[in-house]
């Protein structure tokens, strides 16, 4: 099935609109730390993450039937402020927005967009000399934003532990709890190991990487990226797509990408990243309604800005 002609026309407009948004956010990210740094507030730290990506048309199957080629635009912004309240405890408060927008072939049961707006509430704590922990709940609206109600509310919870063996080796353990997901508890483990002067195996989810340090400011890497979240579609999503049982359905979205990238430390506080490669797999799983869609590999490109100040 071919992509709608309308979508082809809309795509450049979308790209332009999101590019403007991203430029505005990156500009804000670049300006904000400069002003804040003058205050030299050590006991409060700030994190700002902005990202924008595009995946090219990917052959997509619904119940093993080809439904056409689907491309994707994604954007995300996350801001967290972290005041240190004791020597070992930092609180975390913030907000996050992520939008995944798909060029949807007609008739396909593809929610467009999938979007979340959530708060970030948590803390970091030094449990013991070599152990750090982070607990974070992300309450907010997770859905297609057609009919926002209590059904769209979710509050996934992340719990992570880091064991700092020494300067070159750290271990990570964690789990994500999302009662709405088909897999409500997902454990994970990772490691960061700088095994040579310029090489670091940084296997931390959701972005495991093999990193090569070119110089103090530039890093090259090859790695993967995972996007995963659970959403609830609108009251009439199923009706509109000819599958009424998908009204108010819960969908697990999962995406894996892999490819090389560059990370450039523009200033000690701001890092820009650009990467490209293959979106290897993407699924929309309406797990309790027995409907799932899957995309085949397609090229992707992603840029991101991280500020810590």
């Amino acid at each position, binding site marked *: 099935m071919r992509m709608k002609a309308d979508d082809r026309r809309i795509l450049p407009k979308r790209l332009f609109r999101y590019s403007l948004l991203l430029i505005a956010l990156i500009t804000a990210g670049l300006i904000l730390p400069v002003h804040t740094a003058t205050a*030299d507030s*050590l*006991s409060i*730290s700030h*994190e700002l993450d902005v990202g924008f990506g595009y995946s090219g048309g990917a052959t997509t199957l619904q119940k093993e039937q080809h439904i056409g080629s689907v491309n994707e635009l994604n954007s995300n912004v996350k801001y967290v402020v*972290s005041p*240190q309240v004791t*020597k*070992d405890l*930092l609180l975390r408060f913030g907000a996050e927005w992520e939008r995944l927008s798909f060029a949807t072939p007609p008739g396909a049961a593809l929610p467009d967009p999938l979007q979340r707006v959530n708060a970030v509430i948590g803390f*970091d704590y*030094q449990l013991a*000399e*070599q152990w*750090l922990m*982070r607990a974070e709940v992300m309450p907010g609206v997770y859905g297609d934003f057609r009919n926002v109600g209590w059904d769209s509310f979710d509050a996934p919870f992340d719990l992570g532990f*880091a064991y*700092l*063996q*020494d*300067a070159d080796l750290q271990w990570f353990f964690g789990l994500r709890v999302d009662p709405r997901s088909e897999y409500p508890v997902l454990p994970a483990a990772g490691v960061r190991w*700088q095994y*040579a*002067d*310029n090489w670091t195996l940084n296997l931390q989810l959701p972005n495991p990487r093999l990193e090569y*340090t070119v*110089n*103090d400011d530039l890093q090259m890497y090859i790695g993967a990226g995972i996007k995963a979240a659970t959403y609830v579609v609108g009251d009439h999503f199923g009706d509109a797509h000819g599958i009424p049982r998908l009204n108010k359905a819960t969908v697990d979205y999962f995406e894996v990408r892999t490819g090389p990238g560059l990370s450039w430390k523009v200033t*000690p*506080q701001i890092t820009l990243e650009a990467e490209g490669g293959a979106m290897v797999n993407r699924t929309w799983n309406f797990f309790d309604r027995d409907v799932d869609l899957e995309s085949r590999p397609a090229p992707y490109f992603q840029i991101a800005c991280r500020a*810590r*100040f």
Partner: protein
Amino acid sequence: MKRSVIFIAFSFCTLHATASVHGADPVTSLARFSEFPHIDLKRLQAGEILSQRGTLMNFPNGVSAQFCYIVSTAPAETARRLQTWDPTRCKPLKVALFHTMKSPCDLKDFAGLHLDPRQNTVKKLVDKTLATTATTSELNLTHSEANALATCIKKGPAPDTISSCWASLLCGRATDFQKKGFAGTPPYEFGEQSPSPASQIGSMVGEQGRIVREFAPVLRGAGLIKDGTASKALAPTYNWSLFDADHHATLNLGAVYELAVDDRYQLLDVDYYVSNTYYAAATLYEIWPIRIGEKTASLVWRGDFYAAPMLRFTKGIERIAYGAVMIQEIKKGIRCFQDGI
């Protein structure tokens, strides 16, 4: 309060260990100025190294940590060994070269300096050296040092040439320090702040009021405190070394001051010049005699203060992690020192 006294008394009885009757009781002293209000000597005797990450400093470039441990030699011997201990024998510390220097020093003191760019970490230092001009450098230099280094390396990029250029620079810095003390540590003039190593050390240590009071004798003797109190200037031992810091080869100049105070010893070990990676560092030691069985051993408190440019931008949980990792790295050195006795 009573409970802590009972606890301390119990620990002493169990260990058959008695602190010296001369001077202050070390456990009481530790409680007064350190982050160790209660120590279990039994655990220390078993080889445990107590550690505490320092509290957040107002000084944005600084991080600190404290340690407490036992060394099996008597305090005088421990103090002597701390000044002459060769860290190249401790592999985890990644110290490639360590040499003591005489005073006044000369270029012969740096005869062992050889920068081999075939090693990745040294190559980074060599590359930064070769990229240095009179007006730009990523190294900790004054403008005149950068000019001299840039002129010197024009002789050629051979490792021997670069090594001898660095030897001249280090010898000049060491000579200034030997003549003028901390007043002879010119600031690093590249970058935004132009920090002086002496001011970095002074700011970090100066924030710790209780520690400054405890170590006032040795800090005065070293010239870091000038409060009008008469004190004899201490003659330090001098050293230089080449080591890996954060996977970057780094050259440093150090001085260790020792002062006997009653039956205990105070030491101040400073990095008064560092070529790159960080700005300056200071380590304070207090060493008390402690009886373990029939033998006199040393109860050592150690405070480490470290100033680095990137710490200004390392905040939140990353800064806590930085402090925690710093503790693990310093513990490696302490264990080597204990094992070498």
